[in-house]
């Protein structure tokens, strides 16, 4: 056992990398759920984003274009969900699950010819001077650009929800769609925009996996990250910074257990490996009971179908 082999700096730096895809997907889903829609298709949108981003980055040689394609791909896929649930008023849970299955299948079809290819490297943003600060420098100022975009997104989401009129409308639609409708807000339009935003974020998260964290394309490579993101939204009680914290906790457990093992610490690996999933299940069970849902401050109309005539 050699705990000194674990460098806290490198550990925290990889924690931020491990948490980034989940933060992206979870923040997107947070907006969707705040608008009163439960989209369980996060996993599907992530994996479609992963392959769209990967394919375009490889074809164009530009990771930036790849990330844009990933966001677009995720948003387009989510709009299928949007059309089915908002226009055709289908059941959101079933449609979301179907979206995940569809996304997984679609991505493996799209990915057939991208197996075993290396994508162009996403550059690290090495901020001069700041990245030389001991300890904090390498953690905060020597990451790739998406890490910063992600943090900005979380702060932006928080600010929009708390301070802006758009945020207020979004929350109104999510809390009570009939009242919002009576006030003249376009419930369906707001929700569609939220769904597309959620899809774009999930797509970005997927592309971060295939372009930065791994970086390569393998089928089913999201390996449940979308479900974790869904759980973290609930875990974070629909608040952006708590979601961020939840994602860091999850990323932390993942990275820490690997590092402890690498240092030769005898830890019950199987329990640590399953712990994030156990927490996920526990939180989802709690969420499924009505009282706890209110206590957790879930949006009032979460998962309920809206029709203007009713």
């Amino acid at each position, binding site marked *: *056992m050699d705990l000194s*082999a*674990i*460098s806290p700096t*490198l*550990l925290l730096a*990889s924690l931020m*990398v*491990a948490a980034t*895809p989940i933060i992206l997907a979870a923040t997107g889903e947070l907006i969707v759920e705040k608008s009163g829609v439960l989209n369980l298709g996060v996993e599907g949108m992530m994996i479609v984003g992963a392959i769209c981003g990967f394919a375009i980055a490889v074809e164009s040689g530009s990771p930036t274009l790849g990330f844009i394609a990933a966001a677009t791909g995720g948003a387009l896929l989510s709009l299928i969900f949007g059309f089915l649930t908002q226009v055709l008023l289908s059941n959101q849970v079933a449609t979301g699950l179907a979206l995940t299955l569809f996304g997984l299948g679609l991505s*493996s079809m799209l*990915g*057939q010819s991208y*197996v*075993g*290819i*290396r994508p162009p490297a996403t550059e690290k943003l090495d901020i001069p001077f700041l990245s030389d600060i001991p300890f904090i420098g390498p953690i905060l100022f020597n990451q790739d650009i998406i890490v910063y975009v992600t943090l900005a997104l979380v702060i932006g989401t928080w600010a929009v929800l708390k301070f802006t009129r758009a945020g207020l409308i979004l929350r109104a639609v999510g809390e009570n769609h009939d009242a919002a409708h009576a006030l003249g807000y376009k419930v369906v339009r707001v929700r569609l925009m939220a769904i597309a935003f959620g899809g774009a974020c999930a797509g970005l998260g997927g592309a971060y*996996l295939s372009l930065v*964290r*791994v*970086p*390569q*394309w*393998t*089928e*089913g*490579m*999201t*390996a449940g*990250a979308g479900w974790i993101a869904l759980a973290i939204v609930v875990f974070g009680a629909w608040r952006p910074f708590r979601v961020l914290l939840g994602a860091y906790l999850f990323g932390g457990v*993942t*990275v820490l257990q*690997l*590092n402890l*093992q*690498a*240092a*030769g610490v*005898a830890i*019950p*690996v*199987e329990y640590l*490996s399953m712990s994030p999933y156990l927490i996920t299940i526990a939180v989802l069970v709690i969420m499924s009971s009505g009282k706890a849902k209110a206590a957790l401050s879930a949006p009032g109309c979460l998962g309920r179908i809206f029709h203007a005539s009713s």
Partner: protein
Amino acid sequence: MKRRTLLAASAAALALATGGAFADGHAKTKVGFIYVGSIGDGGWNYEHNEARKKVQEHFGDKVETFFQERVPEGADAERAITQMALQGADLIFTTSFGYMDPTNAVAAKFPDVKFEHATGYKREHPNVSTYSARFYEGRAVIGHIAGKMTKTNKIGYIASFPIPEVIRGINSAYLHAKKVNPDVEFNIVWVFTWEDAAKEADAAKALIDQGVDVLMQHTDTTAPMLKAEEAGIMAFGQASDMISAGPTAQLTSIIDDWAPYYIARTQAVIDGTWESKDTWDGIEPGMVAFADMSDRIPEDVRAEATQMIEDIKTGAYKPFTGPINKQDGSVWLKEGETAADFGDDGLAGMSFYVEGLTAEIPN
């Protein structure tokens, strides 16, 4: 001629014409494959699928092959294997350790279908065979190279599940690294998955952060190789040539070549000579092969490695030759003694580390 007799006659004619020995009268031999991961992993499943393609190529029209990928180990596997048997498969290869019980369970229900289970040891029915490769022979060679090449004396090992096959690989690699470099240390990370690119990448990152400069993996994707390439360290590929993922990083790769075995077994089914048996082949018949050795390996080390491969081939050298102690210090193999395949403390059921490894095997 009445219609019924006409049908019977034509069915008989068909059977005669094709020489088909199958009860349901279909002409082609159908061979199914069940993969635990995706065929595009660039590793384990990729090689099984390449071998399937070679079976198809070899037999042409006489054989029809099909596969199902990403079949989870456990209860769902039974459903997938059953479905394949119902589709009319004559021979089914189930290519992961976790399919052991499901394969035997389905075999009981389809006595006319032949089953081949990779890396397991249970043959509960006369229509089940098991086969595996002596990957540990390959690991001995890469262990030797790793011991010679490491500068930090820290070798990283990404392990999947604590099953005998994986433990054998770790022991074999460690023994041979230690032999040429007494200061060598193994840092082992168990990821509890065969294929999860993100997790394998994170594990590789954790090991690299802690100063390993040679990486070995016993998981299926090329993610660890990519991370090694990114970090500028050395690595060994697993199951397949991973040179495209690590053009500089890859020192060599252990390649599983299943094609000769698959072709032989398919032929046996066609000839009606198939019978249940256990096959455990190594370097000699070519089930375990190597990718080209990197130019980074110095000439003398390459010569030693090549010699070791030759000696294992001829049987002059067995990777597990005593004296070897178990991790707790008790004697496993006495001076000059070689490990038995089966029985107590045999290779097939190996569940202990050898002396010198400091980590513990998770349960």
